[in-house]
Each structure stands twice: as structure tokens, then as C-alpha cells.
């Protein structure tokens, strides 16, 4: 289970999407992939770039930069986040690696996707938003 505590001592995969840095619990980060041409799903929001088939599963690709900041990162790489309900791919322009992060895990905003981004935490000199993967999955499943 990839639940977040109020203050983190877990290991996280830290990655950038556009100019922002994010982290997901290392136990939920399955792999980093370069995804092929995507198939767009009719009626899906712009931040849901499309889907691709990977190991017999159809995986949706979410552009975190577009979701959070409204600007696409334009990356063809993604971090696969595997949850019990399914897998999602979060676009990543670069991957810093796995780090133990220290800091509070308060929601970074009162509503929308920011409820599922926690922090602030530091990874070196970087400000990192820790993604609550279960919450993000729920948010996206509801069309967010």
C-alpha cells in the first residue's frame, strides 16, 4: 500500500516533469518507460495524453505538467505507478532516482489535484511535491 504518513521517512522515486519536481513512493513506482505513439481516448481531458499497451495492459498516460500547471512537458518518458486498481503513467522529463525524503506531507492546496500533492519536502536543493498515488488515481478517475 502506498499510503502517505503526515511526515515522510519513506523512499521515493524523484522525477521532474517540466520545471517541477515530483516524488512517488518507491514501492509504487514500477518502472520508467519510453512510451510509443499514444492512442487518444475520445472524451478524455487534455492532461490525459492517451493510452498505450504494455505487458498486456492498457495504460493511461498523464502529463503532470499539464495537469498541475496547464503547460505540457512534451516528454515521451514516463514513470509507471502500479496500484491495486491499475497502473498509470506519469510523464517525466528526467528522473533523479530514489531518495529518502524528510519533511511534512501537508496538502499543497485546498482543492483539485493539489490536495493529492503533499509537502513541501526537499531533495537536495530541489523543492519536491510528493504525489499521493491513491488520491491522484481517485481524482483522475473522477475526470479531474
Amino acid at each position, binding site marked *: 500500500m502506498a499510503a502517505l504518513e503526515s511526515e515522510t521517512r519513506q523512499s521515493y522515486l524523484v522525477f521532474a516533469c517540466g520545471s517541477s519536481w515530483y516524488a512517488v513512493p518507491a514501492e509504487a513506482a514500477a518502472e520508467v518507460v519510453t512510451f510509443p*505513439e499514444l*492512442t*487518444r*481516448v*475520445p*472524451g*478524455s481531458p*487534455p492532461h*490525459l495524453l492517451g*493510452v*498505450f*499497451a504494455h505487458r*498486456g*495492459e*492498457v*495504460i*493511461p498516460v*498523464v502529463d503532470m505538467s499539464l495537469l498541475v500547471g496547464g503547460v505540457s512537458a512534451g516528454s515521451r518518458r514516463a514513470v509507471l505507478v502500479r496500484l491495486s*486498481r*491499475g*497502473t*498509470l503513467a506519469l510523464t517525466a522529463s528526467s528522473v533523479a532516482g530514489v531518495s529518502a525524503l524528510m519533511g511534512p506531507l501537508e496538502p499543497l492546496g485546498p482543492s483539485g489535484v493539489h490536495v493529492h500533492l503533499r509537502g513541501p519536502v526537499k531533495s537536495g536543493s530541489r523543492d519536491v511535491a510528493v504525489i499521493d498515488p491513491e488520491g491522484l*488515481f481517485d481524482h*483522475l*478517475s*473522477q*475526470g479531474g
Partner: protein
Amino acid sequence: MPAAGRVEGTLLCHVGPHRIAFEAGEVASIAAPDTGTVSAHRAFQGDGGAQRVLVTSTGETVGVDGLEIDSEVLSVLPPSPLVAGASGGSLRGFVITRGVLWPLLRLEAFQHYLRGLDGVGP
């Protein structure tokens, strides 16, 4: 992941650069577009028209740019919960043919979804 069933006979449709598919048994006929045709481009935030029209058994229509018929039996891959609600719940899953993924839609439900985008009742 297990397949969500199979489909035999599929209409593979092109909508601009995008792809959608329907089970052939859901399509009563294929016609030329007319003024009442609702275009599948709307589901991709586009404003394109239609070159071919799929007609449901109740006479409702969905316009696409082009289509081809696949007679193979295809496995239907289930949709992720993240996309299951897209296009008004008309997404049945995905099929792989011609080397690429195609969203497989329920024609009648997709037509209702497109009508809803136009602010027109089903």
C-alpha cells in the same frame, strides 16, 4: 490482465489523426453525411465534419472521416478506471489490430454522448 471479452467483426474508424472502433453488429448501415449528422470529431475537441456515417438500429448517426472493416476475432482489453468514464461511459475497452490500439465504443451510447456535447438531448 484478462480480456474483457471478444469481438468478431469490427468497424475501424478514422477521425482526423485519431482512431475509434465499433462492433460491426451495432451498425445497421453506412451512409453519406447529411445536415443532422453528429461528427465524432467533437469527442476530440475538433470541429471536423464527416465523410462516412454510421447508422444505428434506431436511426441515430455518427460521422467519421473514413473506415475499414476488420473481420478477425479480437480480444477486448478492459479500460483503466482512469478512462472508463470518458465519452459518457461508451468506452467498452480497447482492441489491438493493424499493430495499434483502437478504443472500442458502444455506438448508441457514443452517439448520445456526442449529442450531449452539442447540447442536444439523446
